[in-house]
Structures are given as C-alpha cells and as structure tokens.
C-alpha cells in the first residue's frame, strides 16, 4: 500500500504528500523521538501524537514512509510548510494509535 492509498482510506486525511507513491512496509508507534530514532525502520508508517518540527528530521533520518498524526493532532503552518519543503509525507487521523495500527495491519496484510 502506498502513502497516497492510505490517505484515501476511511479515517485518514492527507496533510502533505510529497512522495505519495512510497510503499508502506511496516508500522512503528512512539512519541519519544530518540526511541523512535533507535527503533523505527525504513518504510515504516510512524504513528505519533508529537507535532513539533523535530518529527520531520526524525522521519527523514529513519527514512519512514510517512508520519501519521493520531488522535486529531494537527501541524502548525510552519511545520506543514517545512514538511513540504523537506519532502516528508504526513497523514492525520482522528483515530487512536491503536486503532490506526489495527487498520494498517489489515490493509498491509490484505495486499
């Protein structure tokens, strides 16, 4: 499943799709950025409630397919602009991290 396909799924909304054709190969959930840096792997969709600008660097360095903002978290305009200029895919959802992970599990495994 690509990031663009996920953004079209029910419960998800695109915030920034610079590289929407990236394939989602896994899921990582976490809000402690150093922890995420140590554990998230390339191609993961990273679910977090963090929205400060440092998430963009973490997403870029870990080579995540996309950031998924859970629980209705939104990005400030300057962070959204930075996501566009750095080419970081960001998706938002009103769902909890757990519910997002359940849906991703179904969508990834049904391919």
């Amino acid at each position, binding site marked *: 499943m690509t990031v663009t396909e996920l953004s079209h799924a029910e419960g998800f909304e695109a915030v920034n799709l610079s590289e929407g054709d990236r394939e989602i190969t896994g899921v990582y959930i976490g809000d402690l950025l150093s922890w995420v840096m*140590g554990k998230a792997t390339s191609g993961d969709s990273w679910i977090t409630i963090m929205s400060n600008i440092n998430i963009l660097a973490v997403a870029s*360095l870990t080579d995540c397919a996309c950031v998924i903002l859970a629980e209705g978290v939104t990005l400030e305009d300057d962070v959204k602009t930075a996501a566009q200029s750095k080419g970081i895919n960001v998706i938002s959802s009103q769902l909890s991290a757990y519910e997002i992970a359940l849906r991703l599990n179904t969508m990834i495994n049904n391919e």
Partner: protein
Amino acid sequence: MSEALNFHFDVDGDDFTSAGQASVQIKKNLRQLGISPDTIRRVSIAMYEGEINMVIHAGGGEADVSVTEDYVEILLTDHGPGIANIEQAMQEGFSTAPDAIRSLGFGAGMGLPNMKRYSDYMNIDSEVGKGTTITMRVNL
C-alpha cells in the same frame, strides 16, 4: 578515494527547531557519494543524536564529518558544561534534560546509547566546565 572528504557544520545552540539540519545535509551528501543506505542511516542517526545533545546541553558546537576509504568519522566538539559521569550518561534512560526538552519528545536518555549502538567506534573526551569532544566512526 585517496583523500578524505571533509564536511564542517556549525550547530546553532539557540535554535532548537533547526537542530538536525547538519545530519539531514550529511545524509544527502553521503547518498550522493553512493554509500549504502544502512550506513547512511547509522551515520545520520548517530550524528543527529549528537547534534541534539549539543543543542540541549552545550549551547551548540561544531560537527566535522570525514569520509575516508574505510569509514565515516563524525567529530562533535562543544564548549558546554561537560559530562560529570560518562558511565552514568551512557546508561539507557539516564537523562539530565530539562522538562521543556522532554515535552518535545527528547530527553529520554537514549541519545548517547543510540550513538554507541549505531557507530562501530565511539570515544567521549569530556571535562567538566570545559566541554566535550565525541568521536564516532562507522565502518564502510
């Protein structure tokens, strides 16, 4: 490649929001050099943690990256307060970061352990009141 390629960055200690720019730039540079994705990931994560540490604890510093035939070396130099107990600082979960930093998702006590985990060689030279120099190498 017979001579080392060197990259120098000033890490701004006043601007926490721009922390990580040097690491992201190095990631791009290494990609252009055709270095493997896994090595790039290890170098850039180790460097990012170091960069963040310099911003949080030392008011910024300098980062120098050399790419040789055998390894990528990251040299981080600051003139901050120094590390009183390096052994304690290396423990996962130990942190002296202030609450404001923790609320941004940092200060989990994973910085130095991650730097160690992602490098093949790491040395910390620190003196309280003078500053810290960290050398990391990732083999190619």
